[in-house]
């Protein structure tokens, strides 16, 4: 490996994951998912009747996602309430989760997914998607598969898996690239693709390979945590 990771991890090593299902008793489904120091909590309410009524779809239920940082989850206190960033992440998260779920049996309803970041060390949207996907499964929403998400990336010329904050701010050589993806776990179908940084087009395949491998690992972890809830 050309560039050493500050955390001492191997290039393809995920941070330590933690996951727990059923953390919000009031919700129909809920989960916490952690990548190292990044902690996301998600709760699912629904299917329930959708208000305002004009948004109702008689053909299917709809998915509605809200993502945000808690004010104390970042170094400089985040002003409570939606920002442009959180609005964007809410929407792309909704798009990332929607292909997995089927709400045709629940016309005129909404499934609300609430995601909050309790502690942030980069990878908050991907941790949030993993938590939300587990919470949807926990709520018993009909799903094709779990959605599994990770940020791969690149520091200088080295591809890395599960980018942390120090790596996100890397400045040497080709700098830092952050490439969050989500996919239907057992497929080659990607449901979230975002990127910022510098990555040659011919290295995309390599980055996706790394993401696929990491997602397999995360998928097993999600399934294990989901099984534990019934015990």
């Amino acid at each position: 490996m050309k560039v050493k990771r500050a955390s001492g991890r191997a290039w393809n090593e995920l941070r330590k994951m933690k996951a727990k299902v059923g953390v919000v008793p009031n919700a129909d489904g809920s989960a916490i998912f952690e990548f190292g120091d990044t902690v996301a909590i998600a709760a699912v309410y629904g299917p329930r009747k959708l208000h305002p009524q004009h948004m109702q779809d008689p053909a299917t239920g709809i998915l509605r996602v809200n993502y945000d940082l808690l004010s104390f989850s970042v170094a400089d206190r985040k002003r409570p309430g939606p920002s442009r960033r959180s609005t964007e992440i809410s929407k792309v998260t909704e798009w990332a989760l929607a292909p997995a779920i089927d709400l045709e049996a629940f016309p005129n309803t909404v499934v609300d997914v609430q995601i909050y970041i309790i502690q942030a060390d980069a990878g908050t949207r991907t941790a949030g998607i993993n938590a939300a996907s587990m919470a949807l499964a926990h709520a018993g929403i009909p799903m094709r598969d779990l959605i599994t998400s990770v940020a791969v990336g690149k520091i200088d010329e080295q591809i890395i898996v599960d980018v942390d904050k120090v790596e996100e701010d890397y400045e040497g050589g080709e700098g830092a690239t952050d490439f969050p993806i989500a996919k239907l776990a057992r497929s080659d179908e990607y449901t979230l693709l975002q990127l910022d940084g510098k990555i040659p087009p011919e290295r995309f395949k390599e980055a996706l390979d790394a993401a696929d491998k990491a997602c397999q690992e995360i998928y097993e972890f999600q399934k294990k945590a989901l099984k534990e809830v019934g015990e």
Partner: protein
Amino acid sequence: MSSMDTSNLTREKLTAMFNEDKRFDGRKLLDMRDFEVEYGVSNMAEGSARVKMGKTEVIVGIKMGTGEPYPDSQDAGNLMVSGDLLPLASPRFESGPPKFPAIELPRLMDRMIRESGMIDLKKLVIKEGEKVWTVIVDIYPINDDGSLMDAASIGCVAALHNAKFPGLTEDDRADYKNRTDKKLPLSGETMPVSFTFYKLGDNLILNPTREEEEACDTKVTFGISKWNGKYMVNSCQKGEETVFKRAELERIMEILPGKYEDVMKKLKSYIK
């Protein structure tokens, strides 16, 4: 796209045509529309550009002022990208708080410009830790006939190259009455452009009209530039609920550099 009312007939017709690599306006699926760039949109702006691409028209203006550096970048100037989808430009745009597409457009342009490194923000420092130049890029569509994002990316690069510093007063404020001829610290090599690939069924198309956009299932935008002699993807965002498959993404990566060169050839002729 999916939220608008495209008739099933249009979708079916377009699908049938796309399957034969044909479009209503005679282009093939991956053909771009030609574009033109003009300068001098507003003489109050430090730089500006108008891009016309088919019936799509976008104007971009650059304003510069002085301010304090951000706490996490004391040794660099500030870049802000903003804009709005004016109700002037389309019956589909509404007044009021910005909806998602109006938020996504400037955010994606910001990432593309910033990550490409086309602006050397460190050269915008007036007094380290105290005063820096802030460069504000504002994007407004005048007429939306599809591919606003990609037209805007050309406009941003052209307008930034068109910009000249205002003067500086003794107390380090921008002096708009005494403008200078000094240009922004821009890379000669690195000019990012964005390409949005739309998908209808299994067909990928580039540079859609509004009608085509609305019929499509999903899209993914890539910002690409050249840096130290290498092509670099600087930004990416997938939209809508339909997935992209691995093979489709790999194909896009093969297409991107050629399309980038095509646009660059034209764009460079406008940049002096």
